[in-house]
């Protein structure tokens, strides 16, 4: 069997997996698309309209406008992660992951397919939240390329992270521990709601150890043209995470960690 055949078969396999993931997202839209839309609407109403008016300006923008990019990123992160962790762990738990394992599909495609699912869900939800935000405020990206590339790469990072979580998870509890105890705190402290220049010196330095800070600020820079950190740094950190997590996830899948006895 020649190389072109192999390539074509791999393309079919990848398409099949991505299509399956996409269908799953759309089929259970009440679980996948509606909750972030509701949560984010509440954020906009409460923090933006009600409280935001009293807060006044943040970094020279209305509070609503300031938090909108952060809230979009927050939903992208949570949903990209959540999609891959639950889809992959679900397949592992019900054992139909074996359908992929017995097939000739290489581990890199299994990885790529699941990450694509996470990115699709992240971007779908991101677009939905952006649409909702537009009812409350004006968003016109100053740097469209930065906006799009940062949100895409961030979705990739957290899809990869969700997959790694699912690989190590043994029971359903294990897939909610990381989102609850790591992801949510890091996001809330990642400059979604405030500029870190408001913090005392010490806490500013501590905040810089939080990777989500860089992603949120780079995205805000894309939309508002304003950031707490240098954009080059942000890209650097995002790329390190993409490559590092990709390699780690690929090694885990090749070894069959958490999947094969």
């Amino acid at each position: 069997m020649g190389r072109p055949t192999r390539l074509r078969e791999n393309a079919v396999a990848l398409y099949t997996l991505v299509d399956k993931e996409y269908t799953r997202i759309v089929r259970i839209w009440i679980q996948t698309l509606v909750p972030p839309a509701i949560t984010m609407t509440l954020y906009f109403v409460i923090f933006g309209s009600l409280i935001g008016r009293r807060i006044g300006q943040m970094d020279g923008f209305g509070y609503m406008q300031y938090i909108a990019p952060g809230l979009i990123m927050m939903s992208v992160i949570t949903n990209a992660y959540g999609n891959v962790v639950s889809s992959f762990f679900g397949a592992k738990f019900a054992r139909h992951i074996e359908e992929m394992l017995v097939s000739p599909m290489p581990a890199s495609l299994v990885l790529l397919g699941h990450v694509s699912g996470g990115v699709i869900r992240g971007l779908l939800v991101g677009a939905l939240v952006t649409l909702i935000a537009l009812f409350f405020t004006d968003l016109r990206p100053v740097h469209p390329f930065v906006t799009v590339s940062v949100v895409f790469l961030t979705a990739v990072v957290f899809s990869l992270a969700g997959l790694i979580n699912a690989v190590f998870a043994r029971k359903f509890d294990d897939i909610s521990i990381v989102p609850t105890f790591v992801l949510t705190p890091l996001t809330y402290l990642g400059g979604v709601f405030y500029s870190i220049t408001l913090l005392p010196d010490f806490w500013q330095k501590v905040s810089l150890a939080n990777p989500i800070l860089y992603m949120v600020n780079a995205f805000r820079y894309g939309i508002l043209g304003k950031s707490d950190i240098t954009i080059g740094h942000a890209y650097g950190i995002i790329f390190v995470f993409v490559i590092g997590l990709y390699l780690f996830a690929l090694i885990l899948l090749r070894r069959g960690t958490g999947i094969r006895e």
Partner: protein
Amino acid sequence: MGSGGGRPGVPMRALQIRNLSKTYANGVQALKGIDLNVEEGEFCALLGPNGAGKTTAIGILTSLINKTGGSVEVFGHDIDTDLTMAKSCLGLVPQEINLNLFDKVLNIVVTQAGYYGIPRRIALERAERYLTQLQLWDRRESVARALSGGMKRRLMIARALIHEPRLLILDEPTAGVDIEIRRSMWVFLRRINAEGTTIILTTHYLEEAENLCRQVAIIDGGMIIENDRMSNVLRKLSVETFVLNLEHGVASLPEVPGYVVRSVDATTVEVDVDSQRGINDLFTVLTQHGIRVVSMRNKANRLEELFMRLVENKMVAAGGGA
């Protein structure tokens, strides 16, 4: 898909297992170095009681379990160096249900085809063929959760065949399936075997192996204790060995037509007796030669013991089920 080496029309070796061993993380030694060859076109039973190591062996062939040692070749493709090709020759029907229960029947089969790189158009044609043959076509839009146990099994068979593997492996496909469905599955398996698919099937029902298989490998305690044509094994089973203690030593044993007599020591002999034949003639001849037998016992036979256990198993299953 016709993958694998060899000239068309010339049968080759479908499976070659050498010194295969597996020790699980908890220290259980599930396989203790097994060897097995299965030729193309064969219908082979891997027969053994629960815990013998059947599922472990199959898990290794299908790369769901990592082996500890040894080698496996599927149609000449080594699973260590040529796994992609080995996988495309193999179809697996696992022991435990591993379906996405929320997915629809047709979709499950077509998705599996996609993972093998089969375009949707071809996959749909084949899905219709196999789902029809397995009496599932009418249920193609049902979610797997809504199927009965026997239907889920058949769905797993259709899924395993969708890439038209040259070697189909079924791990206890009829466990818990009622007798009627079991027989129709047997008919189906015989047919695809006749059409050229090599089949390996694990079972702890002796009757199932006897009905379907020409080759039988008997596995117990992680070792293959017998591997032969089914007919030979059945013949071996009908022979019993007795140990006779003689009153006086004899210099040379008489020929006893119809029996195989071996000397163990001066006053002990072993005799193989076909169960059809009975034992009276033996004593007649010995008496004629002035040989007196003081005592006699049945020699323990590993194969026989195992079969007794399998038969008990079967009776338990028959009594408990249906």
